[in-house]
Each structure stands twice: as C-alpha cells, then as structure tokens.
C-alpha cells in the first residue's frame, strides 16, 4: 500500500543548521498494516510522515501509495490518498467554521469542488449518524463552531474527517500527545475502532512505548533519520517496554533518554 524507497531529506542544506533528517529510508507497508513509529526527538518520525504527506519536497528517493508514484505531487493533490491527524488539535480542523462545515469539506477530499451548495439535509443526517457513533455528544451540535470543542473532541472529529472518505493511508502524527491521559486513551480507543472497521493502512507516531506496543500489528523504531528496528506479527505482540529500551541501547549504543518517554512508561 505504501512503498518508500531510498528516501533522504536534509534541512537547511549548506548552512550551519544543516540537519540530515532522513537517510536512505526504505519501508513497505502491506494493505491493512497498522504500524506504530517510535524514536527519540529528532529521530525523523515526523519528517517521514510529513514527506509522505507532501509537506516538504524530497531530496531523493520515491514514495508510492497504492501503486501511484506521489513523490512529486503537491500536498493538496496527495490528500486524495491520505487521511491525516496532527499532533496539535488546532491543526486538523478549521476552528472558526461549524462542525458540519468541517465535515462537509472533509467529505470532498480528493473530489472536485463545484458551485453546488456545501451541505444537503441528507448529508447533515449522515454526519449526525457518524458523530452519534462516537458517543461524544457532538451529534446535536452540528452548527457549533469547532473553536468551542475541547482538544480531545477536536482530535476525534479530525479522525472522523480523515476517514470519512476511505484513505489509502491514515497518517497519525502523535495525535494524542497533546491530550490528558484519560482523553488520550479515549481517542486511541476510537482510533483502533475506526482503523479496524475500515481496515485502514495506518502509520501512527507515538512517544508512548506502551501504546506503540499495544496498538497495531507492526512497530518500527527510528533513530538519526533511519529505521533501526522493524518488528511485526507475533514477535511484536510479545514485546515489552524493557525490550524496546534494551533494543534501543543495543542498536544505538546509547540510552533512549527522553523525559516524555520515561514518563510514558
């Protein structure tokens, strides 16, 4: 479903801030794979996801989604294939617009937009239904401005919007990192439900090793712009946080030290 070949990216090339963010990354995701991505700060997790989404142009390498080479497609054209949820709950929704308007926009991802009226009463009923399944109490607030929602509600809404039109690939960039633990658990639960119901191919970055182990069928660990560990299936199920920490120092020769990760244990 996703094939990344020899992907490299260097930021601020030729300046004193030069940073090699990705070095010859290769990754192949099967349809239905749910891969969690872990790694320290600056490991290249977010860069990898953003390159797939088309936020920055690639230096070298190719990205193929479901057989389509998207390497040079601009972000808005790639959106046709991708559902995205961001770390910042503000980023995935248009906060000054209503819930139903946000959903109407998301329902046309990858389609041509015309001078048809933005929302019909059937769509409204359909959106109400979708929201009701979430149990967040949003189904009767379709004409509420998104700015009045909490971070968790926004992330749930963004998740729904990202999957209203079945994406080839769902990209979750630490989408629970800005939430309190209880809300984060709710949103993760919802993520699992949506992914399994739609059988979505998913990449989820997380700082929480427990979550990385508990969710998905595959786990990759990144360091220094490279994938240093890739585990799937039964082997992944048996992983523990201790295993991961050990693996990291083994492969990298240093401790995987990061406040957020330690706290997340």
């Amino acid at each position, binding site marked *: 479903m996703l094939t990344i070949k020899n992907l490299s990216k260097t930021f601020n090339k030729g300046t004193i801030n030069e940073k090699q963010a990705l070095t010859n990354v290769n990754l192949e995701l099967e349809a239905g794979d749910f891969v969690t991505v872990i790694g320290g700060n600056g490991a290249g997790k977010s860069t990898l996801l953003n390159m797939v989404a088309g936020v920055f142009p690639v230096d070298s390498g190719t990205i193929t989604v479901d057989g389509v080479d998207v390497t040079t497609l601009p972000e808005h054209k790639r959106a046709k294939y991708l559902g995205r949820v961001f770390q910042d709950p503000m980023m*995935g929704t*248009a906060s000054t*617009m209503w819930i139903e308007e946000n959903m*109407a*926009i998301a329902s046309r991802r990858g*389609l041509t937009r015309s001078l048809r*009226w933005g929302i019909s009463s059937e769509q409204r009923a359909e959106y109400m239904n979708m929201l009701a399944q979430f149990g967040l109490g949003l189904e009767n607030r379709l004409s509420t401005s998104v700015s009045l929602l909490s971070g968790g509600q926004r992330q749930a809404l963004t998740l729904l*919007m990202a999957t209203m039109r079945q994406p080839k690939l769902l990209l979750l960039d630490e989408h629970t990192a800005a939430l309190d633990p209880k809300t984060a658990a709710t949103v993760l639960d919802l993520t699992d439900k949506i992914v399994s119901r739609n059988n979505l191919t998913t990449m989820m970055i997380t700082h929480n090793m427990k979550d990385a182990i508990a969710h998905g069928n595959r786990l990759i660990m990144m360091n220094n712009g490279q994938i240093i560990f890739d585990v799937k299936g039964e082997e992944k199920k048996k992983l523990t946080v201790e295993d991961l920490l050990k693996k990291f120092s083994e492969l990298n020769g240093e401790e995987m030290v990061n406040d957020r990760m330690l706290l997340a244990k």
Partner: protein
Amino acid sequence: MIAFLNSLPGAVAQGIIWGIMAIGVYVTFKILDMADLSVDGSFATGGAVLVTCVTGGMNVWVAVLAATLAGCIAGLVTGIFHTKFGIPAILAGILTQLGLYSINLRILGGQANKTVSASNYKLMLTLRNIPGAIIVAAIVTLILIGVCYFFFGTEIGESLRATGANQHMARANGINTDFTKVLGLVISNGIVAFSGAVLAQYQGFADVNMGRGAIVIGLAAVIIGEVIFGKIFKNFALRLLAAVFGGIIYYVVLTLVLRMGLNANDLKLFSAIVVAVFLGVPFWKNKISQKLPARKNEDSTEQ
C-alpha cells in the same frame, strides 16, 4: 444641526457605496485572513474604467461589468505576485496598487480625473437625486450580499473559508490553497472595483486618487460593523450587512465631525485613528477577559 441633518442622506448614500467596497475588503480581511492593499488601486480602476467606457458610449451596466472585470484582473495580479512569486500578501498588494496608479492614469487618458455628467449619460445613480441613489445603492448591495451568501455556502466558497481559517487543514483535505487565495483576491478586487464604478457615477467623476486610503475606510466599515453588530449578527449574510452598516455609520460620523469643524485636510488622520482604535477594541477586550477568572468557558474544557 440643520445643516448636519440636511447632509445626512448624502452621507448614507456614500456610506452604502463604501459599504459595498467593505464587502470586498471583508472577503480578504475576514475570510482569507489577509490584508490586501491592492484595493486602493482597484477602487480607482473601477471608477476610471466606468467613466471612460460610459463617456465612450457604452451602456452603463456593461461599463459596470467591465469595471468589475478590470478589478478582478488587478486581484489576479496580486494573487500571482503572492502565490507564484512568493511575495508576502501585503507587499504584493502594495506593488499592484503602485502599478495600478500608472494604469489608471492611462485609462483616464492621461488626465488625473474625468467627469461623467448625469445630464449627458444614463447612469445608475447620481448625487443630484440622493433618495433615488440610496434606493439603487441599497438594492444593488442586497443583491451582492445575496450572491456572496450563496457563493460562500457552496463547495468552492467553503474551501475559501477553510483556507482562511486553517491552511494546514485545507491542504490536508485536498484544497489547493494557492488557487483559493487567488480566487479570493479576484472576487474581492472585483467587488471593490464595482463599488468604485458606483461611486464614480454618484459623484459624477473618476479621480486617479479616489482610492487613496480606501483600504482604511473599508477596514473601518468592516470593524465598526463587527464591533457594533457582532453580538447580534451571527449569520454570514448579516455579517456582510453589518459591514455595510459600518460604512454608513462611518460616513455619518465623518459628516458630523466635519460639521463640528474638523478641517477636511485632517480627514485621513481621523480615519486612521478611528481604524486603529476599533482594531484595538477586540484585542483589549481579550486582554481584560483573560485577567478575569474564567467562568464562561466551562463548555470548552469538558471532554
């Protein structure tokens, strides 16, 4: 006082015409969240094209259409400067505005101004018949608001609003934000040129300087409308109407201070101060409410 009351209808007529201009400013400033300074040029372009076309024998409505299209082209140029040349929106607008000065002079045949007399040509409205002018301007404004209300409710209109609200979200949902920005600038400058064409008929001439400070008047109208009517006017069409009311209030106040003895040369200074104060009001309100203990926002913190 009597003099003030006598000049009130004229102020209302001018206020409505500038209110149309404010709708154009609303599109860029409120919907796309960018300050577009090209309107100072495209307002005069609208007036210049109208006067030149009408005096050249064109039907006034066709001339109005031509003026509007000329404004659209000006907006297109600003949009291309901004999205294809990577020039910040404000600077892109200033460049267009500057270039338009020369173009407007050419449209006016090298003169700084050109008259179009209501006695020689059939015009939409004229200040010789102020009540009639108010009615025509009001009808035109209501139609424009209706069209805008429809457009910004469509799929394309929605994508413009999303672009202004959150570009990341817009792109992640497949919206070409460069295209929507250019489209917004085209629409905005078209509306502004349209209002310039209406004003030229009302006052009976176009002047190459008639747009100087137009952005400030447009902003004043938008902001006055928002500060005064923001609480009661929630609907999009009503918000546009609020901008037009803002324009009327601005001109009524202007007429009042002129009657009270303000030197006409100080008008621009007065406008600048009014806009600065009204722009500051929401900011100050915010600061004050942040200092008070949070009470109202319980709804936004619950999960």
